[in-house]
């Protein structure tokens, strides 16, 4: 069964701004998907709609076979974790405090960490290789370090699906590659990952599949290598063929 499935999904902003319709998408476990498209085409809107942070205009979203609308926020939080664009509102949190927020769907009334929570946090820190940042506060981190910490928070949430909105923006080339490789290793461990990105050349190496969006057109879906070699991706994105080879 697919972890995420959309049926005739319609996204946008009421009353009349439609950014996408008849979206029939699916994502199986362990898959790393790249969401590609120009600025303003609706990538973030699609991500926010799938996460339940924004109402859909029509159609259906299924998580693990159940309708998204039937689930309460806490149940959704056990299936999807997100890393959004931009920095978190408060930077006066310690790295540990931030990652611990990922355990909120599981912790009790007071949010105290149990031993299982602590071991999940340990695992997330190990997997993102950020042990050396443990004692720091968020305002002390570089953009690349902060992004890894935010991903660790999503990992600590222990969900089968992780969605990241432009995880490589504002990062230097080395950090972009590091973050993408870490995401690849997370998806190899069995989690599904959906990222929106403008780094087509870099992400083509790690993504199993591309979801491409353009204004008023049907989405283009396929394996990155095949889409690029055939020139279908370049044609869809209105760019010369040779730029991506």
């Amino acid at each position, binding site marked *: 069964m697919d972890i995420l499935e959309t049926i005739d999904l319609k996204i946008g902003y009421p009353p009349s701004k439609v950014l996408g319709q008849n979206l029939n998408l699916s994502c199986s476990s362990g898959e790393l998907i790249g969401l590609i498209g120009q600025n303003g085409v609706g990538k973030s809107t699609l991500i926010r709609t799938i996460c339940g942070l924004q109402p859909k205009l029509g159609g259906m979203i299924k998580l693990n076979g159940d309708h998204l609308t039937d689930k309460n926020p806490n149940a959704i939080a056990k299936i999807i974790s997100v890393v959004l664009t931009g920095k978190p509102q408060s930077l006066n949190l310690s790295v540990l405090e931030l990652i611990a927020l990922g355990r909120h769907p599981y912790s009790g009334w007071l*949010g105290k960490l149990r031993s299982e929570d602590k071991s999940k946090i340990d695992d997330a820190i190990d997997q993102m290789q950020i042990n050396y940042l443990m004692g720091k506060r968020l305002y002390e981190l570089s953009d690349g370090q902060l992004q890894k910490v935010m991903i660790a928070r999503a990992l600590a949430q222990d969900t089968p699906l992780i969605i990241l909105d432009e995880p490589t923006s504002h990062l230097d080339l080395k950090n972009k590659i590091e973050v993408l490789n870490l995401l690849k290793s997370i998806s190899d461990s069995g989690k599904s990952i959906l990222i929106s990105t403008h780094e087509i050349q870099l992400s083509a190496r790690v993504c199993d599949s591309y979801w491409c969006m353009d204004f008023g057109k049907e989405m283009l879906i396929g394996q990155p290598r095949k889409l690029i070699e055939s020139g279908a991706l370049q044609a869809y994105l209105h760019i010369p063929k040779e730029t991506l080879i």
Partner: protein
Amino acid sequence: MIQSHIDASTKKWRLSLVTLILSLGACSLLSISFGSVNIPFSFIIDHFIGNSDNKIWSNIITQFRIPKMYTAILAGSALAVSGLQMQTLFRNPLAGPFILGISSGAGLGVALVIFLGVWLGGFIEMTGIGRSWLLVSAAALGSFLVLGVVLVTSFRLRNTVSLLIIGLMFGSAVSALVSILQYFSQAENIQAYVIWTFGSLGSLSWSELYIMLPIIILSLAMSILLSKPLNSLLIGDAYAESVGLNLKKTRMLIIINTSLLAGTITAFCGPIAFIGLAIPHMARMLYNTGNHLLLTPLTILLGAIALLIFDIISQLPGSQETLPINAITSLFGAPFVIWLILRKANINYTV
């Protein structure tokens, strides 16, 4: 692995907590010792041991100073905690318990009673207990009226910043109404109103304290239970929802909680400024954490200690005069906030 980090910070937190509890005890004793009537410290010890020989002094202690001490502790902790919650909810270091117009609403209630009471005939002639209850009820009604309007709007809004602006608008509109009432009033009524705005910790009798105590204790307990949702609000509304928070419900609970705290205190003691704004920052300086489960108890204790100290200062120890508590808190609170802003180039750092 993270356990060692958690252990180290828990140890430091326990130390801060114990220090504050001891300071609270010391300040409470000092607060009972100082007042307009000079009572020697040895007598206070005797009084608590139970072998006091001076009926008048004993009476002053049990009927006046102990209720005032409790009032200061409750008011200080309640205002500090509601300030902390407003700062987190609006992610604004300059937010305080009255940011949504709670004290303006209370002021309007009191102003209506004082100014229109005369006009309707005779309310103001009531003296003593009857009048004090009338003012308390009017202030409570006024602040909960504002709270009701803010709550209804909060349901219609998704954006927290809009709510902040709307709260500020309500506050200023209500203050304007009070100004108009004052404009058409006689001098002695204006004086009565101005005296209310000075705030007072010493005017509460035991019977009023018995009403205030359970409300504040329950709301403080509720504040501890709100720690988890407050923590998740720190990284932003969207992230908070993504870890399973019901944003509108949480926002409503936080507003009700802070309004109960700040509204009740304002109803009984009048407006007391700056505690709510400055104390959460002091708590963060003492023990810097984003975890409200740790920060809230420290803020409660620090607020109580601060208001006890302000109250002792306002008694002008050694003299017969007493200064208005609302002026003293602002007099000491304002330089602190100014210093805070000058010290931190990036004020966001402190929330």
